[in-house]
């Protein structure tokens, strides 16, 4: 074996090691969370854990339902706000504006994703929460506030992936449709949108993943009461907030219950990611 060949082999080995270490970190995290979290779920009773209404860890009562529902509410709210805005923005930028404008705006929109979430939370606390408290009532720290901020936070994901998938539609589809006497909007609605559907769905699911996993901004503006909210103006606690808020002082079974919260979150996010992968891979007919 020449020196060159030996080097080649060594390089390959080193790269392989790096690649596997990334995968193994994921594996270690998964194993760790599940081993710490699952025993308490079964000891306490899976049904009581998932559907119990009371979260009083100091009294050994670990009902996670308010947080599961809280996460779902806040995420749904974020999607209701983020999807229409995001898709509208993507459509305007791809179909109704010049390439130059798109080249200018898209990086700026993507920059939104780089703003630390604590800054979003801060904006929420300083501007949005008082606004809701003064104009709509309630404590201000609410489902509504969290939904709005999260809706804004998922915009870059939704917009930039939707733009990519709309741009990936062959130009001939657009021309063919327009040559048939369809207007730009008809073309967008009847041809571009269905053709880019898989990418758009993927963008929404990735946005959803971001919303459900967001912690800092939510803690700052959601109010964090571990009860099922009765209205949009009630405070809410999400799964992520639950872990972040209590991990600092939790011990024993309480700590395990927080890991169990992580397990639930992990499962939800895994399911969403799998769906995203499947839909973005499938080709439209």
């Amino acid at each position, binding site marked *: 074996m020449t020196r060159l060949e030996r080097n080649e082999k060594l390089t390959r080995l080193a790269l392989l090691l790096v690649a596997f270490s990334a995968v193994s970190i994921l594996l270690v995290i998964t194993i760790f969370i599940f081993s710490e979290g699952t025993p308490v779920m079964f000891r306490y009773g899976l049904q009581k854990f998932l559907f119990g209404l009371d979260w009083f860890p100091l009294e050994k009562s670990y009902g996670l339902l308010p947080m599961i529902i809280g996460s779902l509410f806040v995420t749904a709210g974020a999607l209701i706000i983020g999807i229409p805005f995001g898709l509208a923005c993507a459509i305007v930028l791809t179909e109704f504006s*010049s*390439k130059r404008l798109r080249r200018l705006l898209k990086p700026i929109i993507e920059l939104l994703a780089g703003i630390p979430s604590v800054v979003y939370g801060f904006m929420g606390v300083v501007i949005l929460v008082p606004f809701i408290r003064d104009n709509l009532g309630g404590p201000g720290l609410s489902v509504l506030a969290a939904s709005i901020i999260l809706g804004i936070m998922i915009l870059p994901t939704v917009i930039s992936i939707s733009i990519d998938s709309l741009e990936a539609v*062959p130009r*001939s*589809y*657009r*021309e*063919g*449709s*327009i*040559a*048939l*006497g*369809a*207007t730009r909007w*008809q073309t967008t609605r*009847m*041809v571009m949108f*269905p*053709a880019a559907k898989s990418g758009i769905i993927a963008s929404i699911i990735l946005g959803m993943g971001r919303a459900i996993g967001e912690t800092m901004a939510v803690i700052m503006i959601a109010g964090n009461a571990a009860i099922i909210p009765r209205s949009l103006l009630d405070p809410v606690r999400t799964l992520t907030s639950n872990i972040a808020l209590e991990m600092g002082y939790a011990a024993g079974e309480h700590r395990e219950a927080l890991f169990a919260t992580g397990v639930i979150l992990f499962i939800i996010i895994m399911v969403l990611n799998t769906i995203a992968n499947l839909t973005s891979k499938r080709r*439209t*007919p």
Partner: protein
Amino acid sequence: MGKTVIRAKNFSHFFGSVPALKNINLDIFQNEIFGIIGPAGSGKSTFLRALNRLNDLIPNSWPEGILEIGGRDVYAPGTSVVELRRRLGMVFATPVPLPRSIFENIVFGARMAGEKNRGRLTELVADCLKKTALWEEVMDRLETSALKLSGGQQQRLCLARILALRPEFIMLDEPTSGLDPISTMKIEETLRKLQAEYTIILVTNNTKQAARVADRTAFFLNGELIEVDTTERIFSAPSDQRTNDYISGKFG
């Protein structure tokens, strides 16, 4: 010779500052098959796309001079582009069925125009598919995706889709460049049949195709119209040396 339905007078089209068409003067008559030949980049397609204003989609491009269809300037302010594009059905070089069913592809234009009556739409589909000799091949699978058809079938579907718009003109931009000889023959046969009802403009880089089907042929080179005459004359006794060189295969 029929009456003039399309007339270009000193018509040019610019992309940026570069003219893709320079001072074109030509007439196209009713119910003829008008062939346009020329090498790549000669402005053939630009001419077609000027007629239905598909060039409008390209930023930084503008026309100059006069381009009339039925005596009315295509680029006159207030012209309905959507209506114009319905009058001039266009078939592209690569078949572009939309990613929908065969049925939906054909009724697409009619739906866009607001037709909702299922019976009329069904009738339309059958009628158009019969005219393009596609009916027998697909009548039992109208709901399958148009993308599953063969290349030749897709191209005839595109032609059928155009007919569903009830246009006055059919424009074809190198419609058989990607097709096998049999499919090409079927398209050419269809065109000859359609000639009775439509005025057809056929851009082709296959000079033999123009010789086979066109009544008159124009030769474009570098954005200029070199000459236009009956197909017979062009292919037997062209008046310009460059035309002669092109059709005899010396360049192109």
